[in-house]
């Protein structure tokens, strides 16, 4: 603290030509503000550039065929990426089917039943560590656990990879959501003779539900955009999937595959797929925030 004080008092020391010094300080102040504002507004440039390019290059091919037809073969025109959209949705569903129950039930345990237990501390630590793990590691794990065991790339493997990715988000936001429920509610319910389960199911969960859903939507938004966990677990397919146990197309892998080919039509399709993907992710994010703000 004293370094702060002496620093500031420096300005009153020495010469008495305060006016010129004051002017200099005021000018410096303005210049620094200008630099700070300029640097901040610079962030608008990449975002604007991305959005403009998405619209400019993605809109021309956007039509109903995009959602219903199969991807064109190399060098061919027409087609769409209906199978990739379906694949993305199916794998998110598989991921959710695993991560939502695991995440929410774990959150209930570590917040409602045994907040200070060793298991609860372990769960929190694991969730923290999982958030920091690169998304491609989820893919590596699913490759080792599913693809190498079953011998085929599949929607199951992709779904498992996405589940690992979504679990920490769902768990940690659900814990926050449960923490946000006033303890007076719990005490009132228990005081009226409700069992622990009745308290959680009838009082705590309904109150925390919107905030828990926010976490789920955020996880969905993140999973939808991820390519790395899917690229060598679900791989890609030119066709409609007949089962969950075969290579499955996804929007993000389609963008990756089509972005590096020398055919303008395919590249255009990569842009359209990007537009659809960004729109989906944005809607999921906005949905998450709307649910959350309605609660508060």
């Amino acid at each position, binding site marked *: 603290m004293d370094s*702060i004080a002496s620093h*500031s008092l420096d300005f009153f020391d020495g010469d008495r030509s305060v006016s010129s010094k004051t002017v200099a300080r005021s000018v*410096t*102040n303005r210049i620094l*503000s200008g630099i*700070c*504002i300029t*640097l*901040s507004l*610079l*962030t*608008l440039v*990449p*975002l604007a550039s*991305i959005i403009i*390019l998405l619209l400019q290059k993605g809109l021309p091919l956007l039509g109903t065929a995009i959602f219903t037809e199969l991807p064109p073969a190399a060098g061919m025109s027409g087609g769409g990426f209906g199978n990739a959209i379906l694949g993305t949705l199916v794998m998110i569903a598989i991921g959710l089917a695993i991560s939502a129950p*695991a995440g929410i*039930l*774990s959150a*209930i*345990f*570590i917040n409602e039943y*045994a907040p200070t237990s060793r*298991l609860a501390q*372990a*769960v929190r630590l*694991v969730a923290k*560590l*999982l958030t*920091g*793990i*690169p*998304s*491609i*590691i989820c*893919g*590596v*794990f699913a*490759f*080792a*656990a599913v693809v*190498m065991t079953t011998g085929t790339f599949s929607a199951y493997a992709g779904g498992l990879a996405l589940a*690992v990715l979504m*679990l920490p988000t769902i*768990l940690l936001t659900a814990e926050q959501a449960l923490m946000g429920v006033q303890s007076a509610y719990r005490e009132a319910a228990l005081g009226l003779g409700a*069992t*622990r*389960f009745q308290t959680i199911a009838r009082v705590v969960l309904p109150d925390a539900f919107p905030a828990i859903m926010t976490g789920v939507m955020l996880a969905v938004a993140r999973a939808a*955009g991820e*390519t790395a966990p899917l*690229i*060598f677990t679900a*791989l890609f397919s030119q066709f409609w999937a007949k089962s969950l146990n075969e290579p499955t197309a996804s929007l993000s892998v389609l*963008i*990756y595959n089509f972005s590096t080919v020398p055919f303008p039509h395919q590249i255009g399709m990569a*842009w359209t797929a*990007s537009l659809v*993907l960004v729109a989906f*992710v944005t809607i999921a*994010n906005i949905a998450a925030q709307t649910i959350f703000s309605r609660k508060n």
Partner: protein
Amino acid sequence: MSAPEKDIISPAGYRPAPDLFRILCQTASLLTVLMLGWIIYEILESAWPSIQKFGFDFMTTSAWVPNRERFGVLPFIIGTVASSLLAILLAFPLGVAIAIFLSENFLSASIRQTMRFVVEMLAAIPSVVYGLWGIFVIIPIVKAFGDWAVGSMGDFPLFSGPAYGNSLLTASVVLAIMILPTITAISRNALASVPKTLREGAYALGSTRWEAIFSVILPTAAPGIVAATILGLGRAMGETMAVAMLIGNSSRLSWSILSPSGTLAGLLANQFGEAQGLQVNSLMYAALILIGITLIVNLLGEAVLRHTQKQTAGIR
């Protein structure tokens, strides 16, 4: 808080039924913890043949020749660290500037709200879309800059030619944009939690806004900003798709930031789909190293962040 084991009102011998829901939740928690163990186990097991064959040399040699079964990831470790550090170098000034911008009242609240939204949007754009955008926008810019840099500063090893479009610099520029939201959000929290009284004290002593920022606010928030930077570094190291699409994926070591390079994550993304035999084991080994590096960086960041929160708890 658990229910009383013996109920005095009901007859002796009364036992509450086991709370099945509690058992269910406990099982889910156990599974969550085991998940991390399962992940490490699967990857370790698959990497084992490669670990046994190459041992520590895997990290210090730079040959990646699948058809001769020679594997070493040194160039990719260096590429991972170099691209992330360069990205941090580019993103740090911007991120801190935006964090200051968001926590000061230069412009109206609605403009700040919009800026916040813009930064959040940057976080929502998928990595693969950044890659696609980078191919069409950043590669030409970096190539043009590279040609100029080689011409005027070519003697300097960092800018030695020839300049490529798919280069370390291209990947770092896009990485910088991608980690900007992380750095901004955590730095902004650190700045926002600087007690008002400190700022008011500085103003009362006659300092201008920026004198207050530099002498009081930034020093107080510094640990939080350091944590933000470290966590940003962790994100950059694990980032895969955009880097794989832009960095050129070369295993050649070079001093120049204008030549192609490769990262661990990029290596995994490129080779897993078609890998066989020992190559799979070696990729698993590389994944293990990537986990190790990012885990260390993230734990360090978390530790600094927690330390900060403890430090400022008293004055808040």
